[in-house]
């Protein structure tokens, strides 16, 4: 029998507890932001709430106090958090993707160091990575051996859309190695301590979507990194990056599912009003939202359960990874638009929750991989065309 105050060790109970905490945190964050009416409220408060609930550490091994959460569990937590705040959920999604994908795939000594840091409260961030750009010779970030023969590399380049940049303790960087000693340009994934102004310029993005996300465009200038900061490089890198892409897109998709679900709840609340409850347009809209949410949920969790095929080419793997993101982010916009129709103009003031959701959800299709790139990648994979081939079209 568990004594009062003693944390449970039963995984099922811990999972139930974690979900409950996530729901409580989401509700508290939503209430705080509505009270303040200030879209620029700091992300740190929200992340602190998540830390107290043990959520950022959930992907750690059980022996290190984590839950070894599955991808599906990560997705579930993210959709819950997103109902409270899209910005917080987006930041958390990147952290979850990194900790989830790297806990089994990162090389030592980084892996152990990372898990220990997360257990102590580290929060990871990364810029958006376009898989099509990777296949066509990207990204725009490079690593070169540090001059002088020291055991390190210098990172240069631009990393777009790093959510929660100033709240992160560590940043993951996907870079292309430009080692003069090799003819190849292999991809490298590093996780480095968040750089200061000496080696990075961080320009904040101020927009109506995800206003509390703390997103920045980060430009690295000869940022020194140790070879011990390398998560993967060379031959294993593509498969590790595939795993990271898969985690990233599904975690991101969960955020937009959560936003859409919250919009539906708000629409139902509005629809219960005496003026609306017997109107056919309201019934049809709510029914359509239910149907769309069900399809989104089915695809997301189906993708979580799917086993990546080892025979897939990198392009096929990337296409499979981003497919759910394409569907969910676009459907989320349609669901939220239906919610707005139900709720009506008089209830959609700029400070209302649904107004913020409406701003946030529109970012989904624009976050890499964007719509056109995704269609090119998925279309070419389906048609058996190498996305790296030239000419790109006709």
């Amino acid at each position: 029998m568990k004594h009062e105050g003693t944390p449970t060790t039963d995984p099922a109970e811990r999972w139930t507890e974690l979900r409950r905490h996530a729901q409580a945190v989401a509700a508290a964050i939503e209430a705080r932001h509505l009270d303040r009416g200030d879209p620029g409220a700091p992300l740190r408060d929200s992340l602190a709430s998540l830390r107290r609930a043990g959520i950022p550490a959930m992907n750690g091994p059980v022996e290190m106090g984590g839950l070894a959460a599955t991808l599906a569990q990560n997705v579930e937590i993210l959709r819950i958090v997103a109902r409270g705040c899209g910005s917080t959920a987006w930041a958390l999604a990147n952290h979850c993707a990194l900790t989830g994908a790297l806990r089994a795939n990162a090389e030592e000594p980084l892996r152990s160091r990372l898990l220990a840091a997360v257990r102590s409260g580290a929060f990871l961030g990364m810029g958006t990575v376009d898989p099509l750009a990777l296949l066509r010779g990207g990204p725009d970030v490079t690593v070169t051996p540090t001059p002088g023969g020291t055991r390190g590399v210098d990172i240069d380049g631009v990393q777009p859309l790093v959510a929660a940049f100033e709240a992160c303790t560590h940043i993951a960087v996907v870079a292309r190695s430009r080692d003069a000693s090799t003819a190849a340009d292999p991809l490298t994934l590093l996780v480095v301590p968040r750089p200061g102004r000496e080696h990075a310029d961080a320009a904040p993005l101020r927009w109506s979507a995800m206003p509390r996300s703390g997103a920045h465009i980060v430009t690295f200038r000869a940022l020194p990194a140790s070879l011990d900061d390398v998560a993967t490089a060379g031959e294993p890198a593509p498969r590790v990056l595939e795993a990271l892409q898969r985690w990233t897109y599904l975690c991101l998709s969960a955020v937009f599912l959560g936003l859409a679900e919250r919009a539906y709840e708000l629409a139902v609340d509005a629809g219960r009003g005496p003026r609306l409850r017997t109107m056919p347009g309201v019934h049809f809209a709510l029914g359509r939202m239910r149907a769309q949410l069900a399809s989104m949920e089915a695809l997301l969790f189906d993708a979580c359960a799917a086993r990546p095929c080892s025979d897939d080419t990198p392009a096929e793997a990337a296409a499979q990874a981003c497919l759910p993101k394409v569907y969910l982010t676009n459907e989320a916009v349609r669901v939220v638009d239906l919610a707005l129709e139900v709720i009506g103009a008089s209830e959609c003031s700029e400070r209302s929750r649904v107004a913020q959701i409406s701003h946030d959800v529109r970012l989904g299709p624009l976050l890499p991989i964007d719509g056109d790139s995704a269609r090119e990648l998925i279309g070419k994979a389906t048609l058996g065309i190498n996305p790296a081939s030239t000419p790109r079209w006709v």
Partner: protein
Amino acid sequence: MASHPPTTRREESAENRRAQHALERLRSILLAVDPRLDVTELAPHMSLTQDLGLDSLRLNELLERIHRAFVHVDLASWLMEATRRGQDTLAGLARVLAGGGPPRSDFFVALARSHAATFAERARACDESGRFPHQSFDELIASGYTTMTVPRHRGGGGASLEEMCRAQEILAGGCASTAFAVNMHLHALGILELVEGSSIDWIYDAILDEGALIAGGFSEPGVGGNWWRTTSRAIPVPGGYRVQGTKGFFTGYPRSELLFLSAAIVDERGESEPVGFLLPRPSQGIRVVAEWSASGMRATGSHTLELDELFIESRYQIGGPGELPILFMRAAHWAWCSFAAVFVGIAGAALEHVRRSQRERTLRVVDRPLAHLPGIQFRVAEMQVKLAAARAQLYRAARSEHRSTPDPLQHYLDMSLMKMTVCRLAHEIVTLAVEVEGGSGYTSASPIQRMYRDVTAGLLVPPLADVTLEWAGKQALGLPLFSEPRWGS
């Protein structure tokens, strides 16, 4: 995973039938592997290695061909063991293929694959003529496909809902009309699974021993798909009922030996109580008043029937008066998942068609195959995304636990929402295929135009979208679904 040996004569009969079909297929495959073989030499007791002299190369080829055309069984293990024991006979292999050996969870899926390839060659002719595909149904019966959803303990295939859906998806990719028509039979058996008692054993006997097929008719002209408000009347008479009414969309009627239909018994209060009947096709009291003629699913034989003084014995009643709606709602997953699978099959076939065609097709004004055009790639991508979403939602529903559903109406609504969404996605996919194919896809020679007409039927299988959405919206608001007036009060 070892299968259970047949425990009843009925089970044994069904298994023998499947084994015979497998033996015939196996002979064809062997002749393809080694044309020097004489078909008259391919007796069931012949050993593959000792009598037919197949060496390791030919055995490998044999296994590959069987794997492509048949079930996913561990043939390599079977062959090794059977050869060691001197029991590598055609009959033994046929039994393994027919389900007598290890894993057969995909048996009907593989069977559907082999049928679909043949049916695809006839699909155009069936569509253009509107004639019911009797030959295809002969083959479905001969192969045991139509026993798929007869419970295993009754001697049938005992396929799960998921396997049935996967099989039907594949079959529909070959010929949508055939798949839709046989779906009436297959899903009706799923519904009957919920009927307790031995009063329906004769149905299974007819299907297993005589190849009987069920055709279904709950739809009626003038009720707008509200099948539980049947206008057909069942008047109690000694020994049974006298039924009067009209049934529309009676899919599969041309080939049916068994009819599953609904009528209402009017009780002493004047209340209509819907009831189901499943009876042998009678020689009197039922006639075709309008043959099926539609823009799509043209070969399904979905005739309009008049029931005129049709006498139905009491023993053919399914459930008690008023129980039919609840029975159907509880079994809605069999109906809506399998029908949705047919339309997903059409959509998948459309995607596969454009994937092949655009890789080959060229125009004088473009220096590469059309697959290299961005507009083609973007549309193909959208098709792929929608197909993934449709399949995910369909198979999530098919795999769910349905037996313990506490609320039949909720279950019916959930399945109806799934069907509505999946069929809408299927329609969007085929519409994109039409755009991809362009003008050539619009001609009668192209299967795309037939797929477009066939997939549209998915938007029309009741309950229609407006009804489904109305219920879903009202339920979300905690409103009663069937109150009058329906809106605006």
